[in-house]
């Protein structure tokens, strides 16, 4: 249970190290810290619907439910779309990670070298499979959370929470609409439904999912509030990585300052796990479509495709304004409605499967 919790939480929260704070603060200003809580509530509602769907088909994972409700052809088509989306998600996340790495830490290393190095690690993780990824996530989860908390605590002298005023940011309407769109930031919780058969029953599915969403909501909200408190909404909406900047301003004495090394460790570990997990989900989704039992022979072509997606955006502007906006702003129109529609269809058609276990 803890392994799955660690994995999904890491996959969701990793975006706080990327441009997520920048875009959220840019769009909602001082309301960013609770806009993400609106998204979190939306994500919990989505998760509740996912739970209801799986509850109708105990002992089946999400893709099996699709097949049971929609039939083989339609379900496989949808799973294929999911697979492509997850692959695209992997490529864009990797592109964002590498671009930020180049901006802050490795300006002269060619992007190809960084991507190739990262993909090698992803390949190794995906080769081992879900079990390996989950165990690495569990081991590093504590390190990642400790590093994150450490950065937030060490930067306390620089916070002024009066910078969170005016409380409504750019207006309640903006916060509500952005809050809805940013449910996308939490939609990785769907991974739990995809790997539901690897969990110990629906009871655990519910517990893990809720815990992941609440943890991620709290982390996003606290991090955004701290970034706003340190940099205000004006400078905060300008920094490529607000969390990285937070780690750079830490100053206690001549000896204890500039602890961005902590951030780099946390950031790289979290990124490796998050990107590997989504890559593996893309790969296994594809295998499900074509009933391929061994995913390993497909590693090379999928790595090649990820490499291609990584180079889709040619600059930071494209990454932030087009691709990241798509996966963290509009994926809510793909990932969220499909399971809800399937739930509706199953209710209308009165489809159910098997007896509930572990509920």
């Amino acid at each position, binding site marked *: 249970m803890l392994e799955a919790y660690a994995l999904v939480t890491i996959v969701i929260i990793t975006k706080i190290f990327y441009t997520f704070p920048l875009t959220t603060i840019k769009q909602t*200003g*001082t309301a960013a810290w609770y806009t993400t809580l609106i998204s979190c509530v939306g994500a919990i509602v989505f998760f509740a619907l996912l739970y209801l769907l799986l509850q109708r088909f105990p002992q089946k994972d999400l893709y099996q439910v699709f097949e049971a409700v929609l039939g083989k052809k339609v379900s496989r088509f949808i799973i294929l779309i999911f697979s492509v989306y997850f692959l695209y998600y992997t490529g864009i996340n990797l592109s964002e990670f590498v671009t930020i790495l180049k*901006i*802050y*830490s*490795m*300006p*002269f*290393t*060619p992007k190809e*070298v*960084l991507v*190739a*190095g990262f993909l*090698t*690690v992803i*390949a*190794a993780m995906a*080769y081992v499979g879900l079990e390996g990824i989950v165990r690495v996530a569990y081991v590093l989860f504590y390190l990642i959370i400790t590093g994150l908390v450490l950065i937030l605590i060490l930067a306390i002298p*620089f916070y*002024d929470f*009066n*910078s969170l*005023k*005016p*409380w*409504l*940011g*750019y*207006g309640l309407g903006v916060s509500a609409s952005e809050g809805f769109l940013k449910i996308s930031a939490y939609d990785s919780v769907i991974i739990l439904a995809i790997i539901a058969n690897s969990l110990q029953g629906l009871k655990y599915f519910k517990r893990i999912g809720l815990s992941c969403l609440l943890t991620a909501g709290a982390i996003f909200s606290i991090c955004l509030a701290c970034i706003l408190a340190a*940099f*205000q*909404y*004006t*400078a905060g909406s*300008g920094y490529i990585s607000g969390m990285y*900047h937070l780690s*750079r*301003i830490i*100053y206690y004495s*001549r000896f204890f*300052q*500039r602890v961005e090394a902590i951030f780099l460790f946390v950031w790289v570990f979290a990124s490796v796990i998050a990107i590997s997990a989504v890559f593996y989900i893309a790969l296994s989704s594809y295998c499900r479509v074509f009933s391929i039992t061994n995913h390993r022979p497909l590693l090379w072509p999928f790595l090649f495709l990820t490499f291609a997606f990584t180079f889709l955006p040619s600059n930071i502007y494209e990454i932030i304004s087009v691709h990241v906006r798509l996966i963290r702003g509009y994926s809510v129109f793909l990932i969220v409605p499909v399971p809800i529609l399937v739930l509706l269809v199953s209710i209308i058609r009165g489809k159910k499967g098997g007896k509930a276990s572990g509920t």
Partner: protein
Amino acid sequence: MAPKKLSFLKGAIVLVCACCLSLTGCYDAKEIDQEVFTLVIGVDKGTGNMIRVTFQVSTYKEDGGNGGGSQNGGSAADTGELDGTVISTVEAPSLIESINMLNSASNRQISLSQTKMIIFSEEYAREGVGRYIEPLTRFREVGELMRVLVCRGRAEDYILENRSFIGGSLPKDIELSFLQSANTGYYPDVFLNEFYVRLLSPYAQAIAIYTAINDFDSLPEDGMEKGIIEPHPDLKPGEIPRKGGNKREMLGTVVFSGDKMVGYLNQNETRFYLLATGKYKRGLFTLDDPKSAGDFIVLEVTAHGAPKVTTFLENEIPYIYLEMLLDIDIAAIQNRENYFLNPSAYLELEKYIETYFVRGMEEVIRKTQQEWNSDIFEFGKKIAGNFWTIPQFEEYNWLERYREAKIDVKVKANISRAGYYFHPRPIEPEK
């Protein structure tokens, strides 16, 4: 697959991963002695659109106990060498370009990652520093923890006198000198990050440390006319009557409006400013003794937390109430009056101290309102609480309306201790 072949494959994958992880830094790897680290950057006005940028960089040499001057003989201005550092000045169209130009004349790459301070000449600060700060905040090498100073006179001349007097390490000397802000309160400690955030802020205006070189010509010599003793002289940096030691002197706060310097607070005003913003926790204040003309009372003042600031708007006029509690420890009473034995005298003294601090803070606030219309107190953050949304707050334009604010200061002073003596006896008169 055979187990032997499988384990070989696994081993190979682990090896490749390990190599990849360790090799990605190679492109960006730099040996420590491939770079020289800039300690101080000075920005002066150049000819036309150009700027004159002065860099003081570490040379990795000991100062050699040569009295802090050049090892090759000659003055620092001639050789550029000073206390294990080298000072170079270049005229360039931009700050970042100046690094490039200087790189062409240096056998090592100039790095800004360890820079301790950036100094703008006052002449330049009054014209606006925004376009020189912006590239610094964008440039990956620049640390947000360098301090921002404005110097009287040329920054280049200032850097030529920037040397270490206690200990051999100039970087350590520079960094420790900023920590004195907390002990004296005569100047604020301003990091580049804070300065930049305030430049963009709709809540407040930026400040910087005011600094200058003291040529030691302010100390009255024997035979010079003696003035009246003034506990709070209006001193600019470079004017402290002293001689010996470091010529570098930080005193006062530079006040900005937007990115332009509009004025300064002297050392005492700076202390009231820092008290009012909750950044000055403890320090000594010297007051005229109300009962004995010509004598002073020295107080050790400790602020009880940050001041409480409440605001409201009435007909769009901002009203601000600043309240603070001070804990007073009497450090010296020159006339040896025992205020503790006489309750009315004690209350009178408390009232006197409260009035002193209220007047001091009100005077500083009035100055920032009437003379510069520059909210350096960050009252805007509290005022923002009176608006629901950012567009409403930005439309109100607080920074423009700061002048209109009615600000009331209340101080509660609590004299809690009087040093070692409780019953000081008067000194026996001459017999």
